[in-house]
């Protein structure tokens, strides 16, 4: 679908006073209305959790530490809209700050990595789908080569994938175009033959989706490229 509200635009419009003419025009759009309602819900953490919400949140934190996105030591959980994480969360953060716990987590991370490596090496044609945090980190782009008139993308093969899809994202990470049915682990983007929706010279994010039987099984982290 085209003309979706962009993240940057939505963030700007929602920050305007309700009486602002531009905001009022935006409010007439069903998409803006829907996004505003969803945003209000998104900002309410207590209403968004599943049954194992706290455990999942802790698991997410472990993954982000393992991926090097955040540091392992405890940090406060500041809350922009006045909610707190609760005593269980605070207790966890205190526990995480202890040297013994940190050493344990480091050991656990090593065990997870070894287990995944073993699983990968032993992988044969089973029924496993490449899901979970390791799928997200191991299926990745290995290179972007920019040459005059073309950009070549390379990525690691995803176990069980029968084809790949190259997805282009705008500055707000909303999909702007895609190339379907890529059989190899590389794609060449040529000037003059750009997929619809892309502009030569523009900087975009690109990610690769691995598919099996038409089902998405893994996605690489996004990389930025300049289109030829």
């Amino acid at each position: 679908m085209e003309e979706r509200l962009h993240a940057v635009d939505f963030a700007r419009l929602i920050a305007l006073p309700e009486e602002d003419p531009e905001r009022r025009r935006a409010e007439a759009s069903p998409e803006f209305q829907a996004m505003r309602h969803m945003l209000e819900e998104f900002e309410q953490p207590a209403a968004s959790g599943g049954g194992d919400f706290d455990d999942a949140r802790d698991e997410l934190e472990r993954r982000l530490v393992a991926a090097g996105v955040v540091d392992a030591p405890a940090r406060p959980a500041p809350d922009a809209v006045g909610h707190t994480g609760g005593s269980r969360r605070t207790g966890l953060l205190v526990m995480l700050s202890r040297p013994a716990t940190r050493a344990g987590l480091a050991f656990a991370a090593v065990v997870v990595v070894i287990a995944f490596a073993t699983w990968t090496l032993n992988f044969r044609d089973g029924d496993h789908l490449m899901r979970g945090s390791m799928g997200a980190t191991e299926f990745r782009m290995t290179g972007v080569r920019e040459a005059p008139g073309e950009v070549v993308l390379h990525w690691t093969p995803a176990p069980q994938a029968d084809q790949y899809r190259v997805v282009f994202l705008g500055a707000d990470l909303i999909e702007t175009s895609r190339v379907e049915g890529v059989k190899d682990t590389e794609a060449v983007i040529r000037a003059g033959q750009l997929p619809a929706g892309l502009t030569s010279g523009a900087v975009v994010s690109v990610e690769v989706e691995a598919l099996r039987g038409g089902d998405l099984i893994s996605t690489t982290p996004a990389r930025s490229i300049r289109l030829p």
Partner: protein
Amino acid sequence: MRSRPDEATPDEALIAEYLGDRGGARGRAALSGLIERWSGRVYGWAFRVVRERESALDLAQESLMQMVEALPRYEPRGKFSAWLFVIVHRRCLSAVRRRSLDLDREIDGDSLGARGAGPDAEHESAAAMRRIFAVMEQVLDPRERAALWLRAYEGMSVEDITQVLRVDGASGARGLLQTARRKLRAALDHEGGS
């Protein structure tokens, strides 16, 4: 010992601190504070969309990593939570794209686009979509518009729409959707016949 971001520090200040000291201790602490502030909500939303813990964890992790990559392009005059929300929500929708783009068959097998270009919204022509949006704005009230959009284009369940729009009554959002669809169809029929 790493300094801890003040809980009252606005999101924008944490972003500025991170961008000003990427790779440094202060920058990493600011980024960690920002992520910790929002990670629960990100996971919660992903879970709401995909209804499955592992997939939700994958999506939350990917969304937050994308957020970090996109932070240099963030415009501070906007509202950070809204910017982040769009990233998260669109990423989740991509994961369930086919399901989310199916139009509303659950109500009674009918749909917004069924009259125009078939049940698959991806293949709707831009002109047909613009026409439907224009009619929606003319004949539906804001809540009906939002409900229909959430159902048809955001792939949200009727139960979730009931909660998001805070719809009262036993039928929840189902009744609202039925009313909206009936009004929309009547308007489209009238427009097509005139």
